[in-house]
């Protein structure tokens, strides 16, 4: 039996959200990815704020459905799901443990974004080297900045000859 409605608090909702994984990268939860931003109690309802990763990411619709399903299955109906653009999603929100999980899953994790860079002059520099998630070699080559999902780029390791994906750093 689900807990009575009044027994739920913000932390319970947050814990439920942290059980939901990304449909395209199932090793990470929507909390680790920074998609779930906050839960606040407003009057008699919970306001859940989420922010999209990439604007056109088709996984967002699936994630919203998962959130509704999870909460309703737990008997929670007094909530509102809000898309929030006030903070701009960045891979810097991803904790180190999550990056480690990505690495173990075979996706090279994002590094740290470099703020304050002059973008136009950075266009003239060579792309940064991304270490191969399988053998650790830095002798890798960017194949394309666009990959199987909006958040990933395609690389090739010239030492172990494995193609791999890199979670882009934005």
């Amino acid at each position, binding site marked *: 039996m689900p807990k009575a409605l009044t027994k739920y608090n913000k932390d319970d909702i947050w814990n439920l959200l942290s059980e939901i994984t990304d449909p395209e990268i199932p090793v990470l939860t929507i909390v680790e990815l920074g998609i779930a931003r906050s839960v606040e109690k407003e009057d008699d309802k919970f306001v859940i704020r989420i922010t999209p990763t990439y604007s*056109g990411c*088709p996984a967002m619709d699936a994630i919203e459905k998962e959130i509704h399903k999870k909460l309703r299955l737990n008997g929670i109906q007094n909530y509102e799901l809000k898309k929030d653009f006030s903070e*701009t999603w960045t891979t810097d929100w991803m904790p180190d443990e999550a990056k480690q999980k990505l690495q173990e899953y075979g996706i090279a994790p994002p590094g740290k974004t470099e703020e304050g860079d002059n973008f136009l002059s950075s266009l003239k520099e060579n792309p940064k080297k991304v270490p191969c998630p399988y053998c650790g070699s830095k002798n890798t080559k960017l194949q394309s900045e666009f*990959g199987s999902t909006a958040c990933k780029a395609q690389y090739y390791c010239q030492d172990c000859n494995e193609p791999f994906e890199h979670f882009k750093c934005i």
Partner: protein
Amino acid sequence: MSTQTQTLTKKEALFEYLTRLADDRLILGHRLSEWCGHGPILEEDIALANIALDYIGHAASLYEYAVEIEDEGRNRDDLVYFRNDVEYKNLKMVELPKGDFGFTIARQFLFSAYSYFLYEKLAESHDDQFSGMARKHLKEVKYHLRHSREWVFRLGDGTEESHRRTQTAFDELWTYIGEFFYTDEADELLQNEGLAADTNSFHSEWKNLVTDVLEKATLEVPDWDQYMAEGGRKGLHTEYLGHLLAEMQHLRRSYPDAKWE
């Protein structure tokens, strides 16, 4: 329709402005999606589909905000599927057929460079929700610009054939760049409120970037002072938009009440 109204309210101007930006991205996204399964190499097929998806995502958030501002109970799909060509306010450039890969890349480069400077300004808009969106879109536009810029080098400074095709593409597109900097009452009203971007403020930076890239790609920069087409912002389009909309809207209009689930 609010075309050429004498006095716009701030709300009407913002709806108009958001819709224009959204229309540019929806239509270009649709054009790019036509490459899906037809890209010259697998990586490019994927890249163009990714960029198309980004544009459609940008359009979706801009339309959502536009209908929220309008507050008349319409949703984003109403704007996409139930407006006719004269109600679309996109730039003429984005509705042109996709052409060959050289044409698509040349258009992507001109539009991405423009969008980069535009979003840099919009990121400072006094409207928090709008500026938040712009900051997000800007991150993605940087990838688009990097992608198309690299290809302009490769194609312009590539083979005789790729050079010829890319030069032809820039020559054909040139008459459509004037519209990037078209300004009317809606723009001015919002610029005064600190909501919209003053496109003239980055006109020369944009020109410098384009000149720099074309020259490095061994391409000739067409005449900046040539005749420039306009009309897209007033709903006056090329014949191509009607055909695109017919294809895009057909299913929805045939089954207006259909639901996915």
